[in-house]
């Protein structure tokens, strides 16, 4: 049973109907299948942090929800410690859910405003019937609150979320995720709602907890700098597909996909990007989620030409150690 990988995602696919909702509304009245996640494959080792990066609607949050089994895939398989969990139900599923937890973007949304911190933090124990007495409850809560840096923990127990600052709330959310001692934490843009001066504290806390509790993490963000700070590996997603995946230094110092290149430039040399933006990306945005079989980035790519339009060109190819790119213009 012991397997090298904690999580293996194999060719995950998930489609949504475009019947309603947002931008998709304008495409066509007919029921178009839209790939929210398309052929997503990656592996996650224990104690590893992988970053999913991309713009809104690129499928990063959908991928995370699939990992947490909050959504079922249409196609593809998901393995946890070598075990196929794609079709887990009921008992097996709740066992798996104890091992995976999520930290959301907006801690205020994520925490029930009517519950005090003690009840919020210990709720996972209650749900999984691991609470025997009030004393155990308080002890566990204090322990976990201290580990996320809320000191003195006792003074927080009976407060409500609206009495806390943004950073403190996010710490409570992390404490709640930790209390079941999971193997995997999915952090969905955990710092994007926070002020810069607070953000650093949360990032450092997550890194510290990873070492302390031997956690693996899926870290979702739209900010490449944050991903660079947090992650071991980075997967860049565009329109539901992973377009480039590799160790963070490879991605940031040696980006190969045109989309990654643009992202790197914006994050680390914005001034240069502002002056020469036309050499990085074409004007326009993701106007349609219709997928083709050669390249998702077709419409905005500055390197696009007729040679690109061959079916199967969206497949990943290796360009370096552990570094894969979905672009036919990238030779080794």
């Amino acid at each position, binding site marked *: 049973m012991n397997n090298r990988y904690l999580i293996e995602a194999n060719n995950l696919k998930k489609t949504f109907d475009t019947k309603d909702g947002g931008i998709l509304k304008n495409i066509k009245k007919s029921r178009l299948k839209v790939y929210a996640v398309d052929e997503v494959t990656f592996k996650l080792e224990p104690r590893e942090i992988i970053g999913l990066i991309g713009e809104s609607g690129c499928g990063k949050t959908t991928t995370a929800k699939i990992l947490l089994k909050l959504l079922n895939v249409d196609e593809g398989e998901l393995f946890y410690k070598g075990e196929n969990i794609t079709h887990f139900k009921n008992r097996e599923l709740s066992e798996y*859910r*104890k091992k995976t937890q999520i930290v959301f973007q907006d801690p205020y*949304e994520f925490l029930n405003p009517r519950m005090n911190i003690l009840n919020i933090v210990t709720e996972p124990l209650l749900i999984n019937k691991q609470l025997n007495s009030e004393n155990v409850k308080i002890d566990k809560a204090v322990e976990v609150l201290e580990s996320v840096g809320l000191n003195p923990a006792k003074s927080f127990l009976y407060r409500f979320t609206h009495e806390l600052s943004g950073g403190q709330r996010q710490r409570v959310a992390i404490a*709640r995720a930790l209390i079941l001692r999971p193997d995997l934490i999915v952090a969905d843009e955990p710092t994007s709602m926070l002020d810069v001066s607070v953000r650093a504290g949360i990032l450092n806390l997550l890194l510290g907890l990873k070492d302390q509790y031997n956690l693996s993490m899926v870290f979702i963000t739209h900010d490449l700098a944050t991903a660079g700070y947090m992650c071991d590996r980075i997967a860049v997603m565009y329109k539901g597909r992973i377009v480039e995946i590799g160790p963070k230094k490879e991605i940031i110092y040696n980006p190969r996909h045109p989309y990654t290149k643009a992202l790197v430039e914006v994050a680390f040399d914005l001034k240069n990007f502002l002056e020469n933006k036309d050499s990085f990306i074409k004007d326009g945005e993701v106007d349609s989620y219709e997928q083709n079989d050669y390249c998702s980035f077709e419409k905005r790519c500055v390197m696009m030409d007729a040679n690109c339009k061959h079916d199967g060109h969206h497949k990943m190819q290796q360009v370096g150690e552990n570094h894969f790119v979905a672009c036919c213009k990238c030779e080794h």
Partner: protein
Amino acid sequence: MKKFNDNLKLFFSNKLGLIGTVILVGFILVAIFAPQIAPYDPYQRIGVPFGKPSMQNWLGTNDVGQDILSEVIYGTRISLLMGLLSAGVALIIGTIVGLTSGFFGGRIDTVLMRAVDISLVIPMLPLMILLAAFLGPSFWNIVIVIGILSWASPARVIRSQVLTIKNKGYIEAVKATGGKSSYIITKHILPPTLSIIISQLILMSSRAILMESSLSFLGLGDPTQKSWGIILYYAQSRSAFLSDAWIWWILPPGLLITLLVISFAYIGNSLEQIVNPRLRR
């Protein structure tokens, strides 16, 4: 607990809410102590028919010589009780529909909401007249008719509240920890919905009182129970509006209906302001 006190303060900081409460408490007291307050038994003939107001009969007597003041006082009982009971029936149905529809969504939601739309659009009163006439006049029939025909709008309000809560991050978080539907409903969805249910109950009561009076006025109420609507029904059928009798026969019951409905409306509105922060501006 602190939050409860805050809300109480907020509720009473709204002067209208306070006025409404005072009036309602007054009505409830009158309803409970009607036999002690009323000078006569309203079902007893105590004077000449169509008597003018006098020291004995402050509001005169009706067509069969019963004391109108006593009728009006006893009427408080019937009208108040009927309003609350009908609203209760409506809210039970509305809550079940709203919760199921909002929480489970999908096809159930589509079907139930279509039903809500239809029952909101169809003319309510004609349907009530039909049902009431069909079931025959009795206290409970009226309660049931009003109740089963006015569940739609509370169902809609409750559903939208459930939907808002259901889409909150913390519900997803609970699901991710393995919380079951029953746990989520009882622990996370019902408590914040309860206050909306109560405020709806109060608003529905005020509407039910009006509907009851309308049905009774049309002669579809229980003629053996003296509600305000029934008093007005007899006043109308005896053409009280053609003589001076309207001042003591028609005016008082109508004013009392208005006053009671207003008190409910004030209470309901200030409750809603607490429950629905969007309105708190």
